[in-house]
């Protein structure tokens, strides 16, 4: 329990909590845009940008590396769009290509930079698996700003997002620019990703976006409640996962957050009020009962 009270651990817990909330809420948009795996592709694709950012400045400067990550993720998104729209290659194949080739390029550059003087101490490897333990007060502020931004974007345009996601034709009819909405969506998504990869790494980042949204889906039909619940699930997973990871020596924070999140998903899957396994089994049983009793009454009526 001593570790919990240490100053640094508190910062880590607060920042993973906030990150979890922001990415959980953002994940709902990705879920309904049917682009859950896009976040996976973009977070892998951020790696070369991080390394190039480092190589250009020569020291580990977080803003430059985040800018690099953002640029390379956006290039990846544009390439995916270009490949999909100008050939017969499907979106998932395009994502797979960009994801793996960008990641390969990232590893190539990383190996070269690690040979540079001072490169090995840069902790660039931590971007692959994340390093929540290195979180300091400045990072918490970055995450706070990010989380507030995500919530602002979601709440100010809540009605517009809803129309844009669920009835794009109607949105066009209203004069809502699809290009603008897509642009905002992509920008916020990339912001969440480049912040998150420092904590959980490029490989597991997409889980922070996908899993809470899918879990929330089992509790409600309303988009508003889904966003709120997903934020709570994401934040809760961040909090609990980080606390669990402080219990053991050298336990990785990112994977524990993801596993906590998945546990919440399994609980939702079984107990969820909408389409949960238990509720479905119960509905099936009552229906069967109604069916059986009605057919029995039919039988007795027919017998008369």
């Amino acid at each position, binding site marked *: 329990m001593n570790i919990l009270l240490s100053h640094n651990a508190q910062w880590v817990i607060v920042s993973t909590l906030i990150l979890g909330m922001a990415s959980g809420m953002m994940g709902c948009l990705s*879920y309904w845009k*049917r*682009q*859950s*795996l896009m*976040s*996976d592709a973009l977070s*892998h694709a951020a790696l070369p940008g991080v390394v190039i950012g480092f190589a250009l400045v020569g020291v580990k400067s977080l803003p430059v590396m985040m800018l690099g990550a953002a640029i390379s993720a956006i290039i990846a998104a544009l390439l995916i769009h270009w*490949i999909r729209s*100008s*050939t*017969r*290659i*499907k979106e*998932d*194949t*395009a*994502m*797979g*290509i960009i*994801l*793996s*080739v960008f*990641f*390969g*390029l*990232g*590893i*190539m*550059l*990383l*190996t*070269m930079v690690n*040979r540079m003087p001072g490169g090995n101490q840069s902790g660039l*490897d931590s971007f*692959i*698996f994340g390093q929540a333990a290195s979180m300091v007060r400045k990072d918490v502020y970055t995450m706070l700003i990010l989380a507030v931004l995500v919530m602002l974007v979601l709440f100010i345009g809540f009605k517009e997002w809803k129309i844009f996601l669920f009835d794009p034709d109607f949105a066009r009819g209203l004069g809502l620019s699809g290009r603008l909405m897509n642009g905002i969506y992509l920008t916020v998504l990339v912001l969440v990703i480049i912040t998150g990869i420092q904590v959980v790494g490029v*490989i*597991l980042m*997409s*889980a922070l976006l*996908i*899993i809470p*949204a*899918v879990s929330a*889906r089992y509790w409600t039909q309303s988009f508003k409640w889904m966003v709120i619940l997903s934020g709570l699930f994401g934040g809760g997973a961040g909090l609990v996962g980080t606390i669990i990871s402080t219990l*053991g020596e*050298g*336990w*990785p924070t*990112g*994977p*524990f957050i*993801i*596993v906590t999140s*998945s546990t919440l*998903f399994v609980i939702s*899957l079984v107990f969820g009020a909408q*389409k949960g*396994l238990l509720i479905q089994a119960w509905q099936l049983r009552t229906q069967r009962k109604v069916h059986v009793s009605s057919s029995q009454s039919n039988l007795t009526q027919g017998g008369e």
Partner: protein
Amino acid sequence: MSYTAWILLTASLVGLSCGLMGVFLILRRMAMMADAISHSVLIGIVSAYLITRELSGWHMMVGGIIAGLLTAVLVQWFNSRGVQQDASIGVVFTTLFAIGVIMIATQVGNAHLDVKHALMGEITFVPWDLIQLSWFGAIPEATLILIIVLIIVVIAILAFYKEWKITSFDPMLAASIGIPVALMHYLFMSLVSITTVAAFDAVGAIMVVAMLITPAAAAYLWTDRLSIMLILSGTFGVISAIGGYYIAVFLDTSISGSMAFATGIVFMISFLCSPKHGVLAQHFRTVKM
């Protein structure tokens, strides 16, 4: 054989078997399933190690196949429970991967099994791990496994060529003429897992995705015939593997990263220059009109 020759042979075998499997992955729109399986294979390998306490290729193969099939089954099941297909893929593989990483961090400790190695592969170590075959001489274990996997893949493609062709292009027709679609699906997924595990040692999890998807996608831009697509995709795989090796030697950097990058170059050339589906050809066609 010399050190470089073994590496080139191993890399080419990866390129060839991945290229062949990739064709069906793309046509069945399961590119991201390959990504998922390549990540979740980690948990199979770690479990195999924790149970048997030795790093043997065969145990890992079994572990990997079980993990791959588990992924396929779970994705299918969540999907039938109302989770969107891609979200369901995202949930399953990240969870399994996270569990794998935790198992390595907490249990395996200082054994020489580490996540970075599994993800990025270390093809330079392949020629050191020799086993003796009485009729052949010394051969690296990874290479031998890859040869066997390639033979299995080729036999499976030859045996089920017609079935897979029909299930890939027209699943409804396949079901209606009595092809066991579900069985074919899981058989196919097992083969993808075998290929992934075999390639794991050489190029690592994420480069396997590049090898599986990218050469096949490039081949898809050149031809409309399945047989030609298979040949082209295998060839592109081998070219990228060998080209990637020399890029890596030239720049003195990660071999598996360069191979993934080389598949990207092959794809980019196809994307721009293919006479039928290439961007340049389309551009000139519209200009002419």
